[in-house]
């Protein structure tokens, strides 16, 4: 009998609703009547079926008590709509979502990690750590601030003490129209790997091209605006301006204006259910002011190298792609990921050799990597990566022609393999071996063991 009540209520609503909506339109009245007649017929049929069902239910009661209990339960559930469980769909209830990454490595290598790749002494060299070391612990705090803004802070806790602010940005989530505004301190959106935090890397270290050209990762203090096209295919355009906080920019301080600018574009899509890809291009532009480097080798073979200073324009062009494949699209079981990136940097300006001789200097350096990671069974992945750099051939002004090395005639390379095991989504253990031939004549066989553990809020991962 519950059924009857429900049905009459449903039908009353059903019948009154179209009437209410269309009553004024006399032209539709005829159609409405026909519809109502049909509905009435429908109702009568329903009632008939209901009676049958009730007879069935009574029969069932006679034979088995349980069947009726079950069918009554079904009806109760429909009536019990008033008592759903309250659930929070937001990433936090009210307190910010907190996450802490604990990571550490053991590194073993033959060569001094402070040695730069040949031809890249004027670049960044984040190097490795030998022996046991804690690595950075990363504390993340995230919350929606109000309906408009979301805040993200990531603090890196250095093992020796001290906190550095890795990310501290605000995101506007309410602009709509495919616009995404971010401001504060953030990882630049250029390339593919740059935005990924260290705990999401597939290898212990960044590719050589990232280490030498972006000091592992380029962060910016500034504003980023992205626009996503309203198309079936993923097409995203973005731009950033900022102070030029990190290498290769020289941190514009105490001056108005901006120190660096970036534009990038990404496109991506699926191919069937099992394949997906993303490709991108980026351009980074900065004006370097008194960029100092120490220990730069010279033509005279000065022991320990010399100090140089460069001032001028620096423009980096990048291409990136990633392709992922997973049988049935189920990444929990098995997947294959192939990615590669290429960066080329053109620098033109004045070089001061050993704090004495200044003349023109221009050079184009480039580098690329290609890597693949294969999850061959749940929780287990293996990966391989090949790195290559090209120091370029510099055009050196006459005054420095006998001082500065213009052509190193050597291409630094490195090959790495890794195996990692993730007992759960929150923990990962990794073994990595590398043959590093980035320094001429100094082949280095490297071994790393790493753990990455994530505590607290379950952050969503980027593609």
């Amino acid at each position: 009998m519950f059924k009857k009540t429900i049905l009459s209520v449903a039908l009353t609503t059903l019948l009154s609703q179209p009437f209410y909506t269309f009553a004024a339109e006399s032209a539709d009245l005829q159609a409405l009547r026909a519809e109502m007649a049909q509905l009435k017929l429908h109702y009568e049929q329903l009632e008939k079926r209901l009676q049958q069902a009730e007879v069935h239910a009574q029969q069932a009661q006679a034979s088995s008590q349980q069947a009726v209990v079950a069918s009554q339960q079904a009806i109760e559930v429909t009536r019990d709509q008033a008592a759903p469980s309250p659930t929070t769909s937001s990433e936090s209830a009210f307190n910010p979502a907190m996450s802490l990454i604990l990571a550490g490595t053991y590194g073993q290598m033959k060569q001094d990690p402070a040695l730069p790749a040949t031809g890249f002494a004027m670049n960044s060299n984040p190097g490795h750590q030998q022996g046991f070391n804690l690595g950075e612990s990363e504390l993340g705090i995230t919350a929606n601030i109000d309906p408009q803004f979301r805040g993200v802070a990531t603090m890196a806790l250095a093992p020796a003490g001290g906190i550095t602010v890795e990310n501290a940005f605000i995101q506007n989530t309410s602009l709509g129209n495919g616009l995404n505004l971010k401001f504060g301190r953030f990882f630049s959106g250029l390339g593919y790997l740059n935005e990924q935090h260290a705990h999401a890397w597939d290898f212990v270290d960044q590719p050589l091209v990232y280490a030498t050209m972006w000091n592992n990762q380029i962060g910016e203090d500034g504003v980023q605006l992205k626009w996503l096209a309203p198309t079936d295919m993923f097409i995203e355009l973005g731009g950033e301006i900022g102070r030029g906080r990190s290498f290769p920019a020289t941190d514009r301080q105490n001056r108005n204006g901006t120190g660096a600018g970036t534009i990038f574009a990404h496109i991506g899509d699926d191919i069937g259910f099992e394949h997906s890809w993303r490709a991108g291009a980026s351009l980074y532009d900065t004006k370097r002011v008194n960029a100092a480097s120490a220990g730069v080798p010279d033509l005279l073979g000065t022991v320990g190298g010399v100090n140089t200073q460069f001032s001028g324009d620096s423009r980096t062009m990048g291409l990136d792609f990633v392709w992922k494949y997973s049988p049935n699209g189920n990444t929990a079981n098995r997947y294959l990921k192939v990615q590669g990136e290429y960066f080329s940097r053109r620098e033109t300006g004045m070089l001061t050799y050993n704090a004495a001789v200044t003349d023109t200097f221009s050079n184009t350096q480039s580098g690329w990597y290609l890597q693949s990671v294969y999850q061959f069974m749940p929780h287990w992945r293996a990966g391989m990566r090949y790195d290559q750099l090209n120091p370029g051939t510099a055009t050196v002004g006459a005054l420095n022609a006998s001082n500065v090395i213009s052509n190193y005639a050597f291409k630094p390379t490195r090959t790495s393999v890794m195996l990692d095991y993730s007992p759960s989504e929150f923990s990962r253990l990794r073994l990595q071996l590398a043959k590093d031939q980035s320094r001429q004549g100094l082949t280095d066989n490297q071994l790393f063991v790493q753990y990455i553990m994530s505590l607290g809020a379950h952050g969503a991962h980027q593609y």
Partner: protein
Amino acid sequence: MKKIVAVLVLLFTHTTAHAEINIFACEPEWAALTQLLAGKQATIYTATGALQDPHRVEARPSLIAKARRANLVVCTGAELEVAWLPVILRESGNSAVQFGSAGYFSAAQSVKMLDVPTHLDRANGDVHAGGNPHIQTDARNFLPIADALSKRLVQLDPANSAYYQQQLATFNQQWHAALVKWEKQAAPLQGVSILVQHDGFPYLNQWLGMKQIASLEPKPGMEPSASYLKSVLTTLQQHPVKMVIRAAYQDARPSEWIAERAHIHAVSLPYTVGGSDQAVDLFGLFDDTIARLLAGLK
């Protein structure tokens, strides 16, 4: 440059030509339900397939692009999509479908959640604070969800409210009839002891009255070790079961390993629309689920 602009304009005009509601459904069961309730008014995109683990989906560029144009995102909620949906919604630049807005619909909010942990600790595995999110395994849950979803469609597209209400009435009528049929068919499953591969069936068990003796995952989301599987075998000597059940997207090996040793049936359930050849729609999903469970009794 002109060409690029022309292409962009073309793409833009092409994609805005449709007047219907654009729906982004996280899982196939919600796509199927929305299809029944919104009928011709909706263009539906399904973000995951039946053979994908809905916990572990990548925030792929294509998903972000689809969410960008969605008027309504229909998902389970209850943290099932926590590893990917937040990135997609954020990156979509679509303010209409963010969490908490009218354009985001969480099915879990309409039903009574089971297995809500009283104690939140990851030492217990990948537990969900909101309760077990696999609500689609109890057919009765679709009634309150359909009701809430239909209301949401009306809210977003009031011009077609009559149509949505009619679709809902039709659905309710058909579903009630189907429930009576399914429960009658499933009567022999009442009180039957089972093993599960992943703790994804509390709603199904509650509905059909099956008794879960153990799970092949020591903790939710953890792969079983050989020693753990052996301990399950020992449990089975004291508490015999009829079958071990798993979702279609799960690796068959753990189920088959135990089925062979305990001489029980390994039953793969479609779990959602598209999970088996018979589960072509929501009705087929439960027809097939019950048929497979009954086959497991033999």
